[in-house]
């Protein structure tokens, strides 16, 4: 425990000193929130809906930090440590790959939590958003979305050869997910065939679930997204620890 605590403290300090994630995972979502807030204010999402546009978008806003951390930050930091032979230094110490990966994973969990803790009060205070559905269900789906997306990042970082290939893989995963998962384009406007394909993204499932939970919309099939996200998390964790490369 002491080991994890000390590593986490120092690695978090380094990550904050680096500023990338402070900008992309914490500041960026706030800026997007403010911009959307000024444009849409407290207007309803569409004529006649009981919820506002801001409420409808809130789940997607929370995913910005998840995406930034899981698909850019986490894979890049782990592969950078490998490329710079920092992992090799760890290899000749008693620490296990699982512990190292867990520490890096937790750092990005912290960023996501901080982002959520700034977005929610700000949106509540200035644009009067409120949860129409279940707050607990919303938090649960947010949590599942976060761990499943971060675990994909862990997998990429754990097995990519170097920073370059990690960043290529990260981009290949990042942009389709960001564009097609419903974080930017509404899921509903896409052709059905496409919807079917992008349903396998955990982020797609996560955003749908978060939206439904937040707005109190009926959720047809809770089990599918939960199953998809849990399976992705489990598989990615196992592979990244099993196939971990020090060098």
């Amino acid at each position, binding site marked *: 425990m*002491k080991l994890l605590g*000390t*590593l986490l403290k120092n690695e978090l*300090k380094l990550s904050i000193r680096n500023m990338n994630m402070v900008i992309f995972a914490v500041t960026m979502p706030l800026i997007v929130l403010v911009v959307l807030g000024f444009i849409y204010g407290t207007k309803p999402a569409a004529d006649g809906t009981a919820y506002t546009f801001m409420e409808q978008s809130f789940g997607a806003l929370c995913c910005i930090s998840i995406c930034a951390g899981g698909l850019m930050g986490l894979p890049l930091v782990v592969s950078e*440590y490998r490329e710079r032979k920092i992992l*090799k230094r760890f290899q*000749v110490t*008693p620490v*296990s790959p699982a512990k190292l990966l867990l520490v890096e994973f937790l750092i990005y969990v912290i960023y996501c939590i901080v982002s959520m803790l700034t977005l929610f009060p700000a949106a509540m205070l200035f644009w009067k958003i409120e949860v129409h559905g279940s707050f607990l269900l919303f938090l649960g789906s947010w949590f599942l979305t976060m761990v499943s997306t971060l675990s994909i990042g862990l997998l990429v970082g754990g097995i990519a050869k170097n920073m370059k290939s990690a960043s290529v893989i990260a981009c290949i995963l990042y942009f389709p997910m960001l564009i097609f998962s419903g974080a930017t384009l509404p899921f509903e406007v896409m052709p059905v065939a496409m919807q079917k394909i992008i349903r396998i993204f955990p982020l797609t499932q996560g955003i749908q679930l978060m939206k439904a939970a937040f707005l109190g919309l009926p959720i047809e099939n809770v089990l599918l997204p939960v199953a998809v996200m849990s399976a992705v998390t489990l598989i990615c964790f196992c592979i990244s620890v099993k196939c971990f490369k020090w*060098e």
Partner: protein
Amino acid sequence: MQTVINVEQLSKSYGNLLAVDKLSLSVKRGTVYGLLGANGAGKSTTIECILGTKNADSGTISVLGCNPKKDRNSLFQNVGVQFQEGDYQPEIKVSELCEETACLYEAPADWKKLCEQFGIGNKIGNAVKSLSGGERQRLFIVLALIPNPELVFLDELTTGLDAKARRDVWRILTELRSRGLTVFLTSHFMDEVEVLCDEICILRNGKAVFFGTVEQAKKANKCENFEDAYLMLSGEEVEKE
């Protein structure tokens, strides 16, 4: 005397290049063992195979009675390593790097004291990248000693140090040896090898060409000076002439 490292018939090749060829060596507890040879003779590959960071093609390796690949968790509680190309996180401070290293071990040494001993006690608040080459090298030796090791690997430990810093490192290593520490080192400085090493092995194109003490090397080659003997054995003097 107890054997701390035992290597038998170690071979390792990269593609067609045979980097280490059927090398056997053993290191006794409480001694300083020097692995010498020109650049590319196979020193670093040998160290990496012994540590298990590279897979040997064949041969058996035992370190403190453990298999370095299978038992790394327990083995590295007692082994300190300084790599030639050791790197650190960008932006990390000396204190953070030491603290982060110390937390990995069950019974670490007091890293602040070690930093004092190695003359970087006043630098612990600085960023590692702001240190001079010599200071950084000393820091990496400190890191290797943080586990309170029984055995320490130092790959080109004094490269980049000035004369005084080199003497300081010798003094500390001699003192640690008298307390029972076993040291496995590589070096390109023959004065250092002469002062520190109880036993040496000279590699030439991946093959061991000499085992023994510095005195034996001098005698066998009828040289007054150890460096001359080394150059003859390692095959470097041919190019000089």
